[in-house]
């Protein structure tokens, strides 16, 4: 049992290096940061002048902004150590035969579809998207839905992009949003016309290429009046990152009466700094849900936000984090109530083991005049062993009397009586612990589409391997 676990851990920890060394790039900028690189990126992408301008302004702000003084220790983060633009070759990066057996094995265990496996292993740099979603694409087009990567959007829908980029997450919001704004590459652009309900979740990997899996994805989703859309980002397979710094920015616009949901399953390799700014603005009677699972990366900082600007707008942030050895999550949520009768639900669950740390940092803010607001925050932490740790930092900032805000937090350990009960029915200590942990996560997992729920259960089991008994 332990050997299998060690193998997997090793695989998780090392494989990204194996992969990176064999990647070939059609283009790679010099190491480090500077205006020359920003210009280079913009020129290579053949961007309009306003986009270059946006990037250059962002770079300026980036230099001026300090690192956050709170949260995880980022002092070892050296911005000069990274490549800021990598464009892989269009041709095959490597052959399937060269992919190490253990990695094929992991894909097998995770039950990842063939097409996706090759892509993830770096055999294909472009998913065979025609095969995966060719017929869907036609249907979407006939409904007026736009679903393209951001680079394409800048070329084909420049006005739409220009009107929305940086509007929910301003360049100057934080150092990493500025960094992303300067160097962004890849990500998705989604527009859903008024009244259109997108039944099937839009999944990033339908159209992903290794570039957009990359460091600085930028995503914009616009759900126009009365429409609804569910977008799913990431896949549960370990993602072998070419760079150890990821700073995404995601901006979502939920117009009147519209509904949007954004689900992430993040499983970056352990060498990655994952610093993401994701925020949605919700107009009257609209609703937004962030569903966020974090299993990978070394340090993660992300606080999905809902800005409830129209009356009766509703926002939810559901998140789970599973911190293992060497992992530190500083995750949470923000709900800004700017209008009357807006409501929010924040539900955060974290699991820590082997000295892993996970923290919840949240803000609920109620502006003056936003009467009749209701907000409910619930944070539950489960510690699997004595060395792991969980922290909660809830901030509440209320400028109105007529509000109802609830906050509940709990920290628990795996219950010995529950373990015994399950074991007395024949489950091994490990199976029993996995079952209890999955039970703890169930309220979250049941929000995911079936295939993701199944994969997440498996991933949790992998994280748990060797942790008990």
């Amino acid at each position, binding site marked *: 049992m332990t050997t299998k676990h060690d193998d997997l851990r090793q695989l998780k920890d090392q494989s990204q290096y194996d992969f990176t060394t064999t990647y070939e790039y059609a283009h790679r900028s010099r190491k480090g940061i500077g205006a020359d690189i920003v210009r280079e990126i913009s020129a290579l992408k053949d961007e309009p002048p306003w986009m270059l301008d946006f990037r250059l302004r962002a770079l300026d702000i980036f230099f001026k902004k300090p690192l956050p003084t709170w949260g995880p220790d980022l002092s070892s983060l050296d911005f000069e150590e990274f490549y800021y633009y990598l464009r892989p070759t269009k041709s095959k990066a490597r052959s399937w035969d060269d992919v190490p057996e253990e990695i094929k094995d992991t894909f097998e265990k995770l039950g990842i579809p063939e097409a996706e496996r090759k892509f993830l292993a770096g055999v294909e740099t472009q998913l065979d998207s025609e095969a995966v979603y060719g017929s869907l694409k036609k249907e979407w087009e006939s409904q007026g839905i736009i679903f393209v990567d951001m680079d394409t959007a800048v070329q084909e829908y420049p006005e739409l992009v220009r009107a929305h980029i940086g509007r929910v997450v301003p360049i100057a919001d934080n150092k990493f949003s500025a960094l992303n704004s300067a160097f962004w590459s890849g990500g998705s652009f989604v527009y859903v016309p008024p009244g259109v309900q997108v039944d099937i979740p839009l999944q990033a990997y339908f159209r992903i290429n290794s570039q957009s899996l990359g460091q600085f994805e930028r995503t914009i989703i616009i759900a126009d009046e009365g429409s609804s859309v569910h977008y799913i980002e990431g896949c549960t397979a370990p993602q072998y990152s070419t760079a150890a710094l990821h700073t995404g920015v995601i901006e979502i616009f939920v117009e009147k009466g519209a509904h949007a949901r954004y689900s992430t399953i993040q499983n970056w390799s352990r060498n990655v700094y994952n610093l993401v700014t994701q925020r949605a603005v919700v107009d009257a009677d609209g609703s937004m849900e962030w569903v966020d699972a974090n299993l990978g990366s070394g340090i993660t900082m992300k606080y999905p936000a809902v800005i409830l600007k129209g009356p009766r707008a509703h926002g939810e942030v559901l998140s789970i984090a599973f911190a293992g050895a060497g992992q530190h999550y500083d995750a949470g949520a923000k709900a800004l109530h700017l209008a009357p009768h807006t409501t929010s639900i924040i539900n955060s669950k974290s699991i820590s083991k082997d000295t892993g740390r996970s923290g919840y940092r949240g803000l609920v803010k109620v502006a003056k005049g936003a009467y009749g607001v209701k907000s409910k925050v619930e944070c539950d932490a489960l510690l699997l062993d004595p060395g792991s740790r969980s922290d909660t930092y809830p901030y509440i900032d209320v400028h109105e009397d007529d509000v109802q805000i609830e906050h509940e937090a709990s920290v628990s350990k795996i*219950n010995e009586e*529950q373990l*015994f009960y399950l074991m007395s029915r024949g489950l091994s200590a490990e*199976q029993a612990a996995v079952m*209890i942990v*999955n039970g*703890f996560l169930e*309220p979250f997992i049941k929000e995911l589409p079936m295939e993701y729920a199944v994969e997440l259960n498996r991933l949790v089991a992998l994280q748990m391997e060797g942790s008990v*008994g």
Partner: protein
Amino acid sequence: MNTLEIRDLQVRVADEEETGILKGANLVIRAGEIHALMGPNGSGKSTLSYALMGHPRYVVTGGDILLNGESILGLAPDERARRGLFLAMQYPVAISGVTLYSFLRAAVSARRGYGQRAHESDGEHRRSPLIPGREFRQEVRAEMAKLEMDRTFLRRYLNEGFSGGEKKRAEILQLALLKPEFAILDETDSGLDIDALRIVAASVNRLQRELNMGLLIITHYQRILNYIHPDFVHIFYEGQIVKSDGAKLAKKLEAEGYDWVREQFV
């Protein structure tokens, strides 16, 4: 002949100063036999059942437990379960987020060796860790029907919000699916209403016959023994069995209480 043998068993609670709770218990249960164990509150009956099942809080300080002639003291609870030991608990715990269905399926799969048994015979390694869903559903529905349990329980979380009697019924459902060689029923009767007791007893009797199971029924009342007829009745007192006899002993206890036991054995 299959046997469960308790030999001079001494047990104390981990991290408690106190001296032992079990002070040399002896009992042999053979396949097909039904034993009833009665005794005052706090005499150590549940401690005995936990120790038999291998609960880590109950430390064996002396004596032995033999299953079919082999000591099981070194085995974890799951290994004991897979070898055919079952404990219907006095206070079953609830586990949030785990449906009764997924729990039962995992338990049945573990007991029947799914996930670990490679099929050497045909050279094919079966990886499926779980019993096929369709086969399992049929089986579980049939057993639930016999116990007159509503199927909707399968979708509920394990023991969460179950009434006292519903929990006990769910324990017997597990017994029925896990088909042990030896089962300990720790106060399964308490909490069951009159009809439920009859239904549960009928299932236990049927299983006992079908599997030729050895049974240890822990109870405070004669009532359940009207349905499940014991071959032996034992009185448990201050950590040991102090008297054994046939079914009539239970009737005597029901009529007279434990005073005479106290007088005789203290």
